[in-house]
């Protein structure tokens, strides 16, 4: 018997103990793969730090791919997989609710369960979209990097996180519904999602028979994957507008990186560089004076590539700095908020020594990116 079609009634009459095949093989594999990938994505996104982001991206993308395939199957699969077989009308939902617990049993999704399925599918797609938007704006990677400005990063991450919490809430409701319905109907629903079968009883509401078109489904899903992969690759390669300047002139490294790392021009706005460059003889308690001409040359370069004209997350953080005497970034509220989780001692100990020694923890500090993927807390060297 094909895994893709509901058994004919004659078959069931001949083999009453086998039960009625409700969940075809794709639905079952889909369901449990989705459980795994969503669990991993939720844990890595909500509970683990940025070093797990790769796992988060992979599991999240996988969940979205699964949902896309499920949607295709909803138009091409067998009876109980079809949206036309379970998406309820408003009257059906109202009638179902009115009848309370006394209604007949749906072999497939009952109207409330169906609404839950739709909500879960939609929310996971939404999470994929807002995740890409957060990645593109805040971290300037992925297909939306060239389209969304870094200033939207915070908003998209917040929407993404709220949607994740909503998904968590729906999952709890879904589990509650499954337990309730298993009790009420005396049928172990989680097991049915493994074996695919449910006992056939008098009065069960079955879905209208539909023929599955697995080849059409496989072709559609492959086409969808191919087009998405091409689109993502193409969009991801679009040049960014105003990324942190990549070429650091030798005069800057020679004159401004003798006492400390080379601070990237995008770490403060032009006005702030102006203030700093006109007071080099008293520079954070030291004399860092330069010949007029060299200072002017460096100042021009710094101001041209400053935070207020750069589109990156760290640039948006500090573009609004309005210091009248040079302020070190670690003395700003933004910096303190970001480094709340880091023990104050770590900054004083070897090999960091100073909060301003960003490059000790941020491998890409001198590029101006400060990507969360490039952070490592250095270990204290053993003498």
């Amino acid at each position, binding site marked *: 018997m094909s895994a893709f079609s509901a058994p004919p009634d004659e078959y069931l009459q001949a083999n009453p103990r086998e039960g009625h095949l409700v969940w075809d093989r794709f639905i079952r594999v889909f369901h449990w793969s989705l459980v795994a990938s969503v669990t991993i994505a939720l844990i890595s996104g909500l509970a683990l730090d940025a070093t797990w982001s790769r796992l988060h991206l992979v599991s999240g993308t996988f969940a979205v791919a699964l949902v896309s395939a499920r949607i295709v199957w909803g138009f091409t699969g067998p009876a109980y997989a079809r949206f036309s077989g379970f998406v309820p009308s408003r009257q059906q939902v109202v009638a179902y609710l009115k009848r309370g617990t006394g209604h007949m049993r749906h072999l497939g999704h009952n109207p409330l369960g169906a609404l839950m399925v739709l909500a879960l599918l939609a929310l996971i797609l939404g999470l994929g979209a807002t995740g890409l938007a957060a990645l593109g704006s805040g971290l300037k990677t992925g297909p939306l990097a060239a389209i969304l400005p870094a200033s939207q990063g915070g908003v998209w991450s917040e929407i993404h996180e709220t949607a994740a919490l909503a998904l968590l809430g729906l999952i709890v409701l879904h589990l509650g519904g499954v337990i309730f319905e298993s009790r009420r109907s005396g049928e172990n629903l989680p097991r049915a999602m493994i074996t695919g079968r449910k006992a056939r009883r008098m009065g069960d509401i079955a879905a209208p028979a539909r023929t599955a078109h697995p080849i059409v489904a496989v072709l559609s899903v492959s086409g969808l994957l191919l087009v998405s992969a091409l689109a993502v690759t193409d969009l991801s390669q679009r040049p960014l507008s105003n990324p942190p300047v990549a070429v650091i002139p030798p005069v800057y490294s020679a004159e401004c990186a*003798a006492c400390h790392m080379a601070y990237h021009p995008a770490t403060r706005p032009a006005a702030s560089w102006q203030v700093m460059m006109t007071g080099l003889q008293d520079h954070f308690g030291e004399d860092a004076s330069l010949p007029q001409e060299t200072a002017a040359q460096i100042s021009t370069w710094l101001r041209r590539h400053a935070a207020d004209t750069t589109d990156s997350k760290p640039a948006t953080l500090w573009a609004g700095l309005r210091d009248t005497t040079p302020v070190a970034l670690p003395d700003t509220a933004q910096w303190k908020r970001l480094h709340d989780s880091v023990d104050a001692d770590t900054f004083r100990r070897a090999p960091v020594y100073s909060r301003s020694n960003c490059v000790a923890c941020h491998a890409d500090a001198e590029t101006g990116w400060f990507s969360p993927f490039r952070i490592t807390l250095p270990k204290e060297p053993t003498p």
Partner: protein
Amino acid sequence: MKHVLTLTALLLAQPALAQDTSPQDLIALYGAQSGAPPAPDAGRALFLSDQTGGKPDTPSCTTCHSADPTRAGQARTGKAIAPMAPRVAPERFTDQKFVEKWFGRNCNSVLGRPCTAQEKADIISWLNSL
């Protein structure tokens, strides 16, 4: 450990220097300007002493340079500074502009005034004797 070494090597890497002078030439030059013979002991005393005339965060040359100039020092920002003794750091005192720039800044930070030609000759002659 290998990473620590590479990192240290990177941190200690010097900008390209002009190689237009040598410690001996500079001692001779500053000595001629001051008109007195260089005194390594006076240089040592100045380099290791604590001062009050300069900026409060930098009371001594040894705030950043090691009190043992054959070893690396460390800027207040955590960045390593190569040893000052030419015997272990041959690139020291080989670029006159570079030497002048840093004497200018560092003497101002520590002493609150420029170093005299005599003091420069004393310090280089001490460092060169190590």
